[in-house]
């Protein structure tokens, strides 16, 4: 099996435009189009969050941890890992106890007020590339395997050590 991909954030590139949040909400809407989603009720909800630390924007999204605290903590057995390694909350089983919210180290699990359920990033099962990654105008969000991401980081770091660009 090929190595699964993760959503990585290249923090130096984020402009804080929040486009990832919009695209995420649209992807999780009924119409899946911005023009349609904008008037839907209940309002479509984004699962990615652009936080701000001092003046630096930081996009935060579920890391789908290998050893996921939320999955261990879920008393209803609603949280499981798919074959692709994606940690998902099964709505029909969720009892809305918010234990997952309590234990998530990133704070990326939301509460759906209308449905009384927890929700989170599902890595856009209908898409090849998650909507947030596809929407990022500066490619601050990338969808790569750990190996690829690290290799890319090493290459960049190596080039910097040599004082050249690329190579």
């Amino acid at each position, binding site marked *: 099996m090929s190595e699964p991909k993760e959503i990585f954030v290249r923090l130096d590139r984020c402009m804080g*435009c*929040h*486009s990832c*949040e*919009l*695209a995420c*909400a*649209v992807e999780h809407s009924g119409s899946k189009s*911005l*023009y349609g*989603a*904008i*008037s839907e009720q209940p*309002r*479509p*909800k*984004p699962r990615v969050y652009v936080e701000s630390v001092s003046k630096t924007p930081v996009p935060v999204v579920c890391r789908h941890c290998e050893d996921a605290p939320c999955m261990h903590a879920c008393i209803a057995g609603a949280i499981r890992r798919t074959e692709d390694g994606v940690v998902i909350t099964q709505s029909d089983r969720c009892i809305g106890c918010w234990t997952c919210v309590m234990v998530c180290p990133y704070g990326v699990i939301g509460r759906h007020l209308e449905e009384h359920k927890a929700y989170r990033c599902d890595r856009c099962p209908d898409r090849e590339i998650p909507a947030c990654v*596809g*929407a990022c*105008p500066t490619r601050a969000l990338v969808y790569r395997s750990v190996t690829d991401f690290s290799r890319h980081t090493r290459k960049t770091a190596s080039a910097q050590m040599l004082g050249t660009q690329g190579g």
Partner: protein
Amino acid sequence: MAGERDAMSKSTDPAIREMIARAARMEIKTVWDRYEAMRPQCGFGDTGLCCRHCLQGPCRIDPFGEGPAEGICGASADTMVARGLDRAIAAGTAAHSGHAKHLAHTLLKVAKGRTGAYSIKEPGKLRAVAARLNIPVEGRPDNDIALDVANAALADFHEKETPVLWAATVVNPQRAKVLTDLDLVPRGIDHEVSEIMHRTLYGVDADPVNLLLGGLRCGVADLAGCYMATDIADILFGIPTPVVTEANLGTLKAGAVNIALHGHNPLLSDMLVARAHTRNEDAIAAGASGINIVGICCTGNEIMMRHGIPACTHSVSQEMAIVTGALDAMVVDYQCIMPSVASVAECMGTALITTMEIGKIPGARHIAFDEESAVEKADEIFDIAMANFRRRKNKPVDIPNIKTPVVAGFSVEAIVAALSKLDAREPLKPVVDNIVAGNIRGVCLFAGCNNVKVPQDNNFTVIARKLLKENVLVLATGCGAGALMRHGFMDPANTDALCGDGLKAVLRAIGEANGLGGPLPPVLHMGSCVDNSRAVALAVAVANYLGVDTDKLPVVASAAEAVSEKAVSIGAYAVAAGLPTHVGVMLPVLGGPLVTRVLTDKVKDLTGGYFIVDLDPESAAEKLLAAIDERRAGLGLQSPKAS
């Protein structure tokens, strides 16, 4: 084939598809490449929820309610989108009226005898315009009248005691009352633009409805600018009459000195067309077959209407004219000229020449054009084009062998003249009788641009095809006219195939009464984008003939592939005039639910007009037909059963 499908998603014009493929082979970046690189576009801008009007911003409002619900100043989503829309209307108004002001200054110079290059070509129109403005004409020489008309035009720009004359005198009395009651009569064209800038400033107008009404008043000022531009252009360059010509890239000639005139104002382009024959011998001496002038965008419409100059291409495909490699010079003035033409021209060895002080492009050669030295400047441009031809003449070119016959030039005067062959005393009667009888179901005006988000021309052609079959009389201006002409909609040979039986019979009767030996073309070309005023003039004439207001007429408009802020201001005056007005791309207002509701519905209670925003051309056509039928019902006229 995936490649062909991809090409069709860019343009439905086969000549343009050939050039897109050529540009790709040559690795020349085009508008479609840049669009691809720009995607995905920002959803906040797309919905109008991004504000940069002050230095505390940028602010954006989250349409899904999780993030900020208001700007830092407290502006709501509706306030934000209404302000943004107002500024678009102001920009469009500034552009159309800037074009008009330029012509008014020229008319003033002509009246004062300060320029020998221009003259009053149409004294009849001068007197008609003067009479409409209450300027005395009896027994006065043309120049005196022209002086008064030019001064009245220039006076219309600033705030004054009287309303803007080019607004107040061009609408029917009922509409004048509606506009007066709603306080939508502009007090000065520049004043309205300036007032929009004021009221949309940080901390002024926060009431979305008040902002929209201000925008509509500015839209009426835009009508004034457009109408004035048409009036003065007709006075200086002649009233268009039907001409037979052709359109598309196939109008370029490999062996000729090809000069494309691109932009808007006939001031420069008409001069170049008038001077071309004096330089033809020089072109032949340079080894060319002669000078071949072609038009792009609304300049193309102006010189096509008056001189039968062929149209090379329009709007989104302007770069493709250069990609042929056959263009020796592209001469531009202002509006809708993509700065990218400079780099494409550099790749292809075309001379790009800018001519206006307010419209310079890095990489272009600038020849400052002015009315006093118009002839010399025109000759300088011909010299550059010929020098370019000498360099180019043995190099290969790739001109698509595609062009379409076009009959253009349907000014209101020309239409009335054609109709008077059927009824000399009441020329509008035949049209109105046919509307009443149902042979003409209604009228639709197509206007505006080609937007890269739409496969080029697709929205125009799909809607027009449907409406013509349903016997809707179709008028077109600007690059909407350009789209339809390149697809054969202005070729009388296609009238029978494209039109429903009722409309076909009417177009044939008018054509034959005028000795054309056949019908009028399926779509009537009314001119450039400022010439949307001609469509308003026609609607007002019909309204006056019937004694009803314009919002009662079965007349609709569509900017099916709009781009420019000028299309937004035209849309605003179409709505102010009471027309259901379709826009085929999204206006950046969806983030404001109240504003969206007002524009698409509530404004109907005020002006009778409203926006129909629909990106699907099939359903847009249905909505336009439904709007026509609703108006027919209002007049007590039957509509045909849905087919």
